[in-house]
């Protein structure tokens, strides 16, 4: 019983980090209808940026700040080079252009760091709460994911810039007529989405070993989580991430770990088929 409880708790904590990654994906889709296939490689890049700052002597959690800043500007640059020109084109174009960005990132990353695993080695406390053992890294990663999500909501609902982002997401033409510079807003949104992806990558790097190819797994998890919550809906994506984590946690004691992927993808396809707007209805 206790084993199941701790497995579910572990799932919940990691699910919050999945949720953060999924918000990055879903925000970009919601604002500009672009499915960012570079998402996974950006997550991996976040892991390696953390590794670099950590290697330079910064504490992993302090390194999150420069990783976030780098992530934002990286996203803006990717938007300006690869997305801006084709944003009004058919979906194939944006899928392929973001995928080519992913190929470039993974290609450069492989040349720099090869595909062997890296990890962040720092002191981690272990707590025991009523027989449930949890590491500080897991707790802090989950708390950080929640804090970043709150920050995002504050930005989207309480600042002028955030309201402009929501306006552009709702109706780009109408927003432009109201005098909102939509190109800048789109670039900023892409930057924020990328920043969230990198942050989630950095948080995952504090928990598990990683390679430059690790992003792929989390990209697929982000797809599943954001589709669960309805593409384009940040709250849904966070809940989707939590559900995903809970599923992983609750089936882990009973079946082999390699079967969880099968379950996740079957759920993914079924949700797309029967609830294309997500479990929570959400706006299309």
């Amino acid at each position: 019983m206790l084993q199941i409880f701790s497995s579910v708790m572990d799932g919940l904590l990691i699910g919050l980090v999945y949720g953060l990654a999924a918000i990055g994906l879903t925000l970009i889709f919601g604002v500009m209808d672009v499915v960012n296939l570079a998402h996974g490689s950006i997550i991996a890049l976040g892991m390696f940026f953390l590794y670099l700052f950590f290697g330079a002597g910064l504490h992993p959690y302090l390194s999150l700040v420069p990783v976030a800043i780098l992530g934002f500007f990286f996203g803006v640059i990717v938007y300006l080079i690869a997305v801006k020109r084709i944003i009004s084109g058919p979906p194939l174009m944006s899928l392929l252009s973001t995928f080519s960005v992913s190929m470039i990132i993974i290609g450069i990353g492989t040349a720099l760091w090869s595909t062997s695993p890296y990890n962040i080695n720092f002191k981690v406390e272990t707590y025991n709460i009523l027989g449930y053992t949890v590491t500080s890294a897991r707790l802090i990663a989950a708390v950080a994911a929640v804090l970043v999500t709150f920050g995002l909501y504050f930005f989207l609902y309480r600042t002028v810039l955030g309201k402009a982002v929501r306006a552009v997401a709702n109706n780009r033409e109408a927003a432009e007529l109201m005098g909102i510079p939509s190109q800048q807003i789109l670039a900023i949104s892409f930057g924020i989405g990328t920043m969230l992806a990198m942050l989630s990558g950095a948080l995952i790097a504090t928990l598990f070993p990683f390679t430059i190819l690790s992003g792929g797994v989390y990209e697929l998890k982000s797809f599943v989580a954001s589709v669960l919550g309805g593409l384009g809906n940040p709250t849904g994506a966070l809940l989707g991430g939590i559900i995903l984590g809970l599923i992983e946690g609750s089936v882990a004691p009973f079946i082999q770990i390699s079967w969880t992927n099968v379950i996740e993808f079957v759920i993914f396809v079924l949700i797309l088929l029967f609830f294309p707007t997500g479990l929570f209805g959400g706006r299309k």
Partner: protein
Amino acid sequence: MKALKSPFFWIIIAVSLLYAVYPKLGNNITLRETLVLSAIYVILATNLNLMIGYTGYVNFGSIVFFGLGGYLTLWLIGGYGWNLYAAVLFAGVVTSLLTLALGFGILRLRGAYFALATIGVNEAVKDFVSNFDKWGGSEGIFLPFSTYKSMGGAAHALWTVYYLIIGVMALSLLLSWFIKRSKFGLGLFAIREDEDAAIVLGVKAPVYKAIAYSVSAFLPAVAGGLYFFKNGSIVPEEAFNLHLSIESIVMVMLGGQGTVTGPWVGAFLYERLRGLLLTTPSLSNFHLVIAGVLLLLIILFAPGGLMGWLYKRWARVRGVLE
């Protein structure tokens, strides 16, 4: 036969014959292996084009057909002693029927949603096969060497399989060309341009899309069976390699989507380029980067691909190379 009068028909036949005869002349096995890969790329790209170029549905997980065909074939040959021809045909038909059933479901999704679902299907099948003990799980299936004895020894069997793969390539190109000129193809183009308008005008869009999806699965499944039979083994990572299905999209885009010649030329050029990058020591580390930059440049500046550019430059080319 009207087709026999068209120069394009004879171009397809002539090039395929050249593929078949050329390596045999000097008994050049290295060249044969290069051409096998080239032909497989042409098969994948040409059939993928039926969905992307003709119907306007972006299938990101098309490699699932190739992998499933390979698995079914090796399982029937290795486990039940079927002969190669029966096994690949059966694999092709089963994959096609499964795809037809799947198509009626997931083709209700449009745009990015469909693309995501196809990725999901490929990953689900890959993870399932990796755990499926009957098919060897993550170890895959190996064919014993004795399998090739009934085909006159391994060396002879490899040539036979080579000719069969070239045959499938020719069939893919002919199929693509026939569909383009048929009423069915016209319906697909109408769906690509505006699905709702096409429905109003009487195109049975759900049926058309599902048939196109299913047809685009048949020859890649057969090719998968032949290819993995030639290798003698199959593992999930190789069979359902998502990367290869995206590389197929690059080939389609490179040559020009919606044309018959485009994916063909695109696949050929991509194979050459990939070979060049992988064998040049200073570039091999960066082959992914260069392929990525190339793809990005095509999308940003030449979305019509090579054929789009040719058609614009010399409009008369359109009459010969479809």
